[in-house]
C-alpha cells in the first residue's frame, strides 16, 4: 500500500518502461517499436525483452545499423499515420541521426505551414557512470533541448518511466525520451494502476525551505540523497525534478527559488552550454531580486569521459559535492 492507500507493486524502471511500451502497443494498433536489436536480442538493455514474442516482427522491428535511415523512416511513418516508437540504442549514436531530427522532425510542421505534424517518439539511453568511456557516455539531453520543434523528456522515477510514454505518443509532435542507463535497475514500489502522466510540469520530489536543488534524470537520486544528508544538519533542501527539458517549466523553477532564495542546479551534462546554464539564466531573468546568492551549478567536468573508474567518478556530479556546495551556500546567510 502506498501512502495514498493505492495498491502498489514492486517494479524496476526497466520493467516499468517495458510495461509502458506493451500497454501502448495494446492500446493503439498504430504504435510500433523500431530500432537496433529491439527484437531478437531483446533490447540492448533488455527493455523490450519479450515484446517480439508477443507482438511479432512487424510491430517489433529490428533495424540494420542505419541510424539516419530508421530515424528518418520513423518521421515518415509518423506522417503516414503510424505512431512509431523509434529506439536509438544510446544517445551517442543519435549523432548519426541528428540531421533527420533537427532538419526534418523539428522543422516539417513549420516549413509546411502547419500541414504535416510528426507524432513520433524517439527513445534513447543516455548518461555515464558505467565505465563506457568517451564514445559511450554522453549526456546530451540538455543539448537537444536547444532545438525548437521537438520536446525532450527525462523520466527519472518509476511512475514517469511507466507513464510518460503514452502521453508522448499522444502528443502530435516529436518527443525525445532520454532514459539514464543507470536507472534501469532501480527498483521500488509503484501504484499497481499507474498510468499516463503529464509531460509538461516539473515536480517537487521533496519540499524544503533553505535551498532548491534543481535536477532531472540520472542525478535526481543523487540530489535526493544529498537532501537527506543535508537534513541531518538541519538544512532543508527542496528537490525539483525538471522531468521535461523542453519546453522547460520555468514557473515551477521560479516558484521554488522564490521560496528558498537559493538555487543549485545539478546536471550530468558538460558545464558549458548545459541546460543548467539555461536554468541559471532564467532564474537571473525572473528571480534575480529573490536570490540570496548566485545560482550555482554542479555539472560534469568538461572532459571526454575517461574509462578508469576513479577518473569517471571524479568527472561526474556526486552526492558529496552537492551536499558540500549546498552547505556553503546556506552558510552564506542572505
Amino acid at each position, binding site marked *: 500500500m502506498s501512502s495514498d492507500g493505492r495498491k502498489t507493486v514492486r517494479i524496476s524502471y526497466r520493467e516499468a518502461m517495458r510495461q509502458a511500451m506493451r500497454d501502448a502497443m495494446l492500446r493503439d494498433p498504430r504504435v510500433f517499436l523500431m530500432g537496433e536489436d529491439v527484437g531478437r536480442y531483446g533490447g540492448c538493455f533488455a527493455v523490450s525483452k519479450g515484446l517480439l514474442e508477443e507482438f511479432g516482427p512487424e510491430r517489433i522491428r529490428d533495424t540494420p545499423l542505419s541510424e539516419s535511415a530508421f530515424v528518418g523512416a520513423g518521421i515518415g511513418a509518423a506522417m503516414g499515420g503510424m505512431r512509431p516508437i523509434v529506439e536509438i540504442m544510446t544517445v551517442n549514436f543519435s549523432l548519426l541521426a541528428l540531421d533527420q531530427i533537427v532538419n526534418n522532425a523539428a522543422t516539417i510542421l513549420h516549413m509546411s505551414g502547419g500541414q504535416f505534424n510528426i507524432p513520433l517518439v524517439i527513445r534513447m539511453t543516455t548518461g555515464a557512470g558505467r565505465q563506457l568511456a568517451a564514445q559511450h557516455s554522453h549526456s546530451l539531453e540538455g543539448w537537444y533541448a536547444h532545438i525548437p520543434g521537438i520536446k525532450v523528456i527525462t523520466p527519472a522515477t518509476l511512475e514517469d518511466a511507466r507513464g510518460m510514454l503514452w502521453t508522448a505518443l499522444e502528443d*502530435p*509532435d516529436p518527443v525525445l525520451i532520454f532514459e539514464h542507463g543507470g536507472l534501469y535497475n532501480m527498483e521500488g514500489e509503484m501504484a499497481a494502476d499507474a498510468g499516463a502522466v503529464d509531460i509538461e510540469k516539473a515536480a517537487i520530489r521533496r519540499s524544503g525551505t533553505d535551498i532548491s536543488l534543481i535536477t532531472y534524470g540520472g542525478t535526481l537520486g543523487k540530489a535526493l540523497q544529498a537532501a537527506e544528508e543535508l537534513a541531518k544538519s538541519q538544512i532543508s533542501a527542496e528537490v525539483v525534478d525538471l522531468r521535461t527539458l523542453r519546453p522547460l517549466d520555468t514557473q515551477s523553477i521560479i516558484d521554488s527559488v522564490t521560496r528558498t532564495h537559493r538555487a543549485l542546479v545539478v546536471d550530468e551534462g558538460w558545464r558549458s552550454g548545459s541546460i543548467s546554464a539555461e536554468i541559471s539564466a532564467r532564474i537571473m531573468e525572473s528571480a534575480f531580486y529573490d536570490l540570496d546568492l548566485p545560482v550555482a551549478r554542479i555539472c560534469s567536468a568538461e572532459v571526454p569521459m575517461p574509462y578508469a573508474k576513479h577518473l569517471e567518478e571524479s568527472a561526474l556530479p556526486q552526492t558529496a559535492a552537492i551536499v558540500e556546495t549546498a552547505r556553503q551556500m546556506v552558510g552564506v546567510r542572505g
Partner: protein
Amino acid sequence: MPPQATTPESAPAPEHSLMLLREMLRIRRFEEKCAELYSGGKIRGFMHLYIGEEAVAVGAMQVLQPDDAIVSTYREHGHALIRGVPAKTIMAEMYGKQEGCSRGRGGSMHLFDAATRLYGGNAIVGGGLPLAVGLALADKMQGRERVTACFFGEGAVAEGEFHESMNLAALWKLPVMFCCENNLYAMGTALRRSESETDLCLKASSYEIPAWPVDGMDVVACEEAARHAYLSVHSGGGPCFVEFRTYRFRAHSMFDPQLYREKQEVEEWKKRDPLVILQSRLEQQGLLNAEDLARFEDEIGAEIAEAVEFAEAGTWEPVEELTRFVYSESSRS
C-alpha cells in the same frame, strides 16, 4: 555526351501526347516567370530551376495515383505543378505570402501540399529518402496499396542517407519508387568527380533493387519507364530505381557563374530539349499544329498571369504569428 533519341516502344494516344507537351510547357513558362520575378526581387532566398528536366516530372507524374505520396528536393517546382498543386499557391509561396502552399514559411525549396500528398521539397541533399521509406512503411503496415515516389539528384547518391535508405527499403520490400534525376552535376561537381562507379543503376542493384536508366529528355520514354517501375512497386515487388538521364539548362541556383562546364556542352544538350523533341515528333506525325501550340501558350500564359496576380494580392502573415507551427495547435495527435 547527351544520349541519342530513342523511339519509345508504344506511341501514346495523340491527345495524351499533346497533354504531355502542354504540361512540360507549363513548367517551362512558369519557371521563366520565376526567374524574372527573382531578378525583380519578388522571389528571394535560394531558387533552383528545373528547366531542361521537365520531361522527368511530367513523365513520372502520369503514373501516380491521387493517394500516392511524393517526396522531393529543393528543385521541385515542376513536381509540385504537375502533381496538381495550383500554380497560384506555389507562386504565392515563393512570394512569402500566407496564401502560399506552405503559408510563406517554406519558400521555393519547401513546397508542401497535404491535398496532393506532396511531403515537401527538402533542402538537405539525401534528406528526403528516409522520409519516403517511412511513408512507404506506414502504407505497408496499414495494408494500403500506395506508392511513394522519391525524387532526388544524382549528387545525393554519395550521401550515407542514400545507402541506408536503399537498403532499408529493399530489406523490408517497401513500395518506394526511387526517381534519380541524373543531370550530371551536383552544383559544380560532375558525377565522374563524385562517384568511383558512375553507373548508378549498378549501385541500386547492389541492394537487390531493380533499376534501369531512361532518356530523361524524352517524356514518353520517361512515362514508360516510370510505369514499369510503378507496376512493379505497386504489385508488392518492393522498391524500384529509375535513373532519369537529363540535364539542367540553367545555373544550379540563381548565384552560379557556371565555371564548371563548357557553354558548348550546354548547347549540345539544348538540342535535346525535351519540349523540342516531343514537339518535332508530334509535328512530324502531323499531330501538332501551330494553333494547338498558340492555344497552349495562351492558356498557360493566363494561368501564370493569374498566379502572379494571386501572389501579388496575397497577404503577409502577421508577425504576431511568428511562433505558430513550432508545435501543433491541437494538443492531441
